[in-house]
Each structure stands twice: as structure tokens, then as C-alpha cells.
């Protein structure tokens, strides 16, 4: 019984921490975050299984974790508010060619990171972007202006 409670607590605890850290921490692992994700199992492993190394305990811990994961995904699917609570909402980083400073500050996304993602997406200039959206998974999605859209005035300097 204690294993189920411990796994449940640690699951909610880690889910809460990852949610608080933000989308970027989930989407892209910096060396610091990688260290964190390597250390977390080491730290919580003992707390989860205590001195009980039986197969029974392992099966209980894994099935409890899987049950929680599945229950979370079902609740996220059924209830939009719960989905937003667990996964967050996409954030607008660029709107009509202009960076949204407030969102960038909140999500700790630098202009250099956006420029890097733009190069990867094959986009040369920021004024060609209608929207850049930081998805809940941490990836940045770019929507470019279509020929029918009214584009903002072109700037000469491309984004670094």
C-alpha cells in the first residue's frame, strides 16, 4: 500500500515541478536539465522502493506509475481545463513579425534561440513570420505569412 502512495506522491511532485519549470525545460534539455533528469531517479528511487527489492514491489510501482500516466492522459483528453493545468497552453512568441517580449521573458526564450529555430525551419527573416508559437511540448512552431496575408513592412536587417 505504501508503494502506491509513494509512487503517487512522487509522480504528482515531479509533474508539478516540471510544470512549474516551464515548457522549454521539457522540450529541450540543456546540460543542467539533463543532470537534473539523471539525478531525479537516483534521489527518488530509494524513497520509492525503500528496502523492498522484491519483484512484487517493482510490479506494484510500475503499474501504479502507468495507471497514473494513463489516468492523467484520459483526464487531459476529457477535460480541457485539466489539460491546461497539466500541459499548459501554447505561447505566442512572435505575432505579425514582431517578437512578443512579455511571452519571451516569461518563457525565458532569447532572440538567439528564436533565430536558431528559424534557421532550422529555413526562415530567413522575422518579418516573414505571422506567428511563432511555443508549443506545450517545448518546440517552437512557425506560421509564415501566406501570399494573401497583409504583411508588416519589411525590415532590412534579418534576425541574427
Amino acid at each position: 500500500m505504501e508503494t502506491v502512495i509513494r509512487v503517487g506522491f512522487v509522480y504528482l511532485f515531479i509533474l508539478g515541478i516540471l510544470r512549474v519549470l516551464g515548457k522549454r525545460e521539457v522540450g529541450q534539455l540543456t546540460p543542467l536539465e539533463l543532470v537534473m533528469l539523471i539525478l531525479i531517479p537516483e534521489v527518488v528511487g530509494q524513497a520509492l522502493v525503500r528496502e523492498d527489492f522484491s519483484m512484487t514491489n517493482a510490479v506494484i510501482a510500475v503499474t501504479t506509475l502507468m495507471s497514473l500516466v494513463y489516468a492523467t492522459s484520459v483526464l487531459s483528453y476529457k477535460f480541457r481545463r485539466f489539460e491546461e493545468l497539466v500541459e499548459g497552453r501554447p505561447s505566442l512568441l512572435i505575432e505579425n513579425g514582431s517578437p512578443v517580449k512579455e511571452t519571451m521573458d516569461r518563457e525565458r526564450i532569447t532572440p538567439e534561440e528564436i533565430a536558431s529555430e528559424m534557421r532550422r525551419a529555413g526562415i530567413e527573416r522575422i518579418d516573414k513570420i505571422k506567428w511563432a508559437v511555443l508549443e506545450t511540448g517545448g518546440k517552437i512552431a512557425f506560421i509564415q505569412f501566406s501570399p494573401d496575408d497583409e504583411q508588416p513592412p519589411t525590415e532590412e536587417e534579418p534576425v541574427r
Partner: protein
Amino acid sequence: MQVPDQPRNLRLHAYQWVGLPLIFLVPVLALLNIFGETRDYAEAAGSEIALRVEYPSRYRFKQLESVHVLVENVSASHVDTLVVAFDPAYIRQFSTPTFIPSPTEPFEIEILAVEPGEIRRVWAELQGEHYGRHSGTISAYRQGSLDTARVILSTFVFP
């Protein structure tokens, strides 16, 4: 960008109808302590000796559990030597058995000078080693007497 709003209904694959209840069942059973440690009691009495044993009836691999044995001289006379004997076949299913007091013979503990009505305690610690159900006996008798108090123990060790 607007995403069309549509009712979200949960649908499962055929294999999920079977698998998911099984996955959810394990933690539920664990919460109900189906896989947890349980203890049981057993009592027996002869004309001279009464025996009461508290033992683990269910526990897990490599877990340590203790067996508490209380022996009482229920006769009206002094008992010089009282023997508490653990079934070797039962004890060998566990690892690192420890006894207090120490055995004089393998798995046999002698208790000296037991007055009428006196209760003495024997304690054993057993670590779960072999999976499955193990049964055996604990006997208590006055040395040299055929009158024996015997209890049957049954312990299940989860893998």
C-alpha cells in the same frame, strides 16, 4: 489559430479493454494490502505446555519478518528443560534465520527451569528467500516427555 471544438469521447482498442483493467487492478489490490505483509496466530496446548505463535503469514522476497513464540508451563510442576523445535523444512525456505535464545541443536531451543504458570518467549527472524507457500510446524515439549504442543505455520513469500 482556432482548433475545431468537438466532443472528446474515450475509445479503447480491444487489447486495452483487457490490459488496462489489469494494470489498474494491481495498485488497487496493493492499496487493499493484498500484496502486503500479514501476520497470523496459532495456538496449541498439551497437558503440560501451551504454545502460542505469532508469525508472518504473507510477506515479500528478501524482507525480514519475525516469529514470536510464547511457551507456558501449564502444569502444576516445575519443568527442568522445555524444548521449542522449529520444523527444519520450514526454516530452510528462509535465509539467515536468527534465534533468541540461541539454539542448542539445529532449530531447537532449550529453555531451562520453567516454573508452573511461567511464560517464556522465543524469537526468530526470517528473511524471505524462496517464493511460494511454505508450511511447517513449531513444537514445544518437556524434554523426555511425549506430550507435545504443536502448531502448523503457513507462510506465503511473494517473489
